[in-house]
């Protein structure tokens, strides 16, 4: 697989405050690459640097094997993006907006092409309506149409589900999967929700305070072997002693009242044994350790995942 985006030692400072710190990552051809981080982690700043909206303080960005700094126009003609909110010219119609951004992307515009694109996002019947009359979801769909009108090879979506209702989120997810699987596009999608990234991305990175924390394939990072089991019982101290004396002792987490890290497939067997040990269970919750790790970044709980750098 060829590298589509290569980011090396990228840093950005605003008034001596480091927002992105020595960040390196690679997005390969055909990837749906999840860019995960809490709000203020530096995701949008990194994306803005990829789109030349912000100049890096240090580091290098190559896209399609070419340096962004020296091949800007050539690269951007093959990139489609929705950056945060899909803001468009509110006083113009959906058709006019699409036409303007298609021409700015350097393609030959035909009415047929524009209508086809509007049809793809379900806005063909609102083509002549002004954008100011659109709902957030409709604007988001039009933003996607604008990002895709010039048939880009790389699509960058910065928090594309922000402000969408559940149906809108599902539609967006399906669209991204379609772009990747049916059209072979490379997609970089940022989000602050792990649940969103894990269902659409094949590779992901977690950044925190501008630094890379984890990068890898979603399958590996969300390996069921890293499932965290939280147990609550009527007497947690006694329950811990019983588990420590059982075959499950090696899975018991240190310094945690009743937490085990194990393969998800072993959970039914664990529950049977807990019942057999006369532990009166109030609840058994499973979550992936990556999820806990990501949560810890937000809450500063100090949790360190076994795979974290």
């Amino acid at each position, binding site marked *: 697989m060829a590298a589509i985006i290569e980011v090396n030692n990228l840093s950005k400072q605003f008034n001596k405050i480091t927002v992105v710190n020595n960040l390196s990552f690679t997005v390969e051809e055909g990837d749906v690459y999840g860019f995960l981080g809490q709000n203020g982690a530096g995701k949008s700043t990194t994306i803005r640097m990829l789109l030349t909206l*912000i*100049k890096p303080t240090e580091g290098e960005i190559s896209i399609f094997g070419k340096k962004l700094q020296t091949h800007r126009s050539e690269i951007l003609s093959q990139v489609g993006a929705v950056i945060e909110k899909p803001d468009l010219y509110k*006083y113009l119609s959906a058709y*006019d907006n699409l036409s303007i*951004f298609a021409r*700015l992307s350097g393609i030959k515009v035909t009415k047929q092409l524009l209508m086809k694109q509007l049809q793809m996002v379900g806005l063909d019947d609102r083509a002549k309506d002004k954008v100011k009359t659109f709902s957030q979801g409709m604007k988001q769909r039009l933003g996607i149409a604008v990002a895709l009108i010039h048939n880009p090879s790389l699509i960058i979506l910065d928090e594309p589900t922000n402000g969408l209702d559940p149906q809108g989120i599902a539609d967006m997810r399906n669209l991204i999967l379609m772009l990747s699987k049916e059209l072979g596009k490379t997609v970089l999608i940022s989000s602050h929700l792990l649940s969103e990234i894990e269902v659409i991305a094949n590779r992901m990175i977690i950044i925190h305070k501008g630094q890379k924390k984890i990068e890898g394939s979603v399958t590996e990072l969300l390996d069921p072997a890293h499932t965290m089991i939280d147990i609550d019982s009527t007497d947690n101290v006694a329950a811990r002693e019983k588990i420590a004396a059982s075959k499950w002792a090696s899975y018991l987490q240190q310094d945690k009242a009743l937490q085990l890290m194990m393969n998800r497939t072993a959970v039914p067997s664990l529950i049977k044994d807990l019942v057999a040990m006369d532990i009166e269970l109030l609840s058994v919750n499973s979550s992936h350790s990556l999820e806990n790790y990501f949560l810890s970044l937000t809450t500063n709980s100090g949790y360190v995942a076994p795979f974290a750098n």
Partner: protein
Amino acid sequence: MWHLLQIELYKISKRPRTYIAFVAITAIVVIFQFAFKADGQSYMDLMLQSVKDTFAFDRVQAINGYFMCYIILNTLLIQVPILVALIAADSISGEANMGTLRLLISKPISRTQIILVKFAAATIFTIFLLIWMAVTSLFFSILIFGTGDMLIFRSKGDESQILLITSDDVMWRYYAAFAYATVALTVIAALSLFLSIFAENSIGPIIATVCIVIVCTIVSNINVPIIDKHVKPFLFTSYLVGWKGFFYINTDADNNTIKGSLENWPAIRRSLLILVAHIFVIVWASIAVFKRKDILS
């Protein structure tokens, strides 16, 4: 570049605020024309009061289309910078405010192209505004008041002067004056564009432009030798009303005006060159600043 300019002009043409300037000009001109049609005689009596014994002229005939246009321009060309700023100050800040600036910059067009196209569009808007001014204040006035020889009232130092330009010597002066005004107002457009780079809504740059014009105009009117020598020559506001130079006609020994003459063409030419230099410097500064700007909107 041409298709970028087409897009920019299309966007401007679709914004309601674009037409505010045209409506404002029309309203002011119509009010002037109505007032002079109803009671222009009083104005002429007042202006000719001091010379009524020495200067024989048909006062009714003096209020013609050419004279009206001159009176209107004297008033309007001071206010028009605000109308130009209304559009030019919105060029970048308006895009930032709408959030379209980041989309625009993520397209394969350079920041230099964006500034040049925005500047060109603001200049074209200024030209259209002045054409509309010419149509309403000159051609409509000619239709309403007719043509004739044109009187110019002028204060020169401590003395007042009245110049008479024959009707066949007027039109070229108006064409030249409107062309000069276009250059002068383009400086305002460039200044507004420059200021709009720093803002995320258009109100700030509009107010800043108007403040700069007001402050510089006040400084341009301060008669202190040190300011006359070291400040005024560099202020664009010192040259904004230079269009009047096309109506200052030479007179012969008998105090008769000489057809086709200009009192001080070198001064007009110098003023034009200074204004053009201002445009180049401000547009260059706009490009330099915009190229380095991080887009955070």
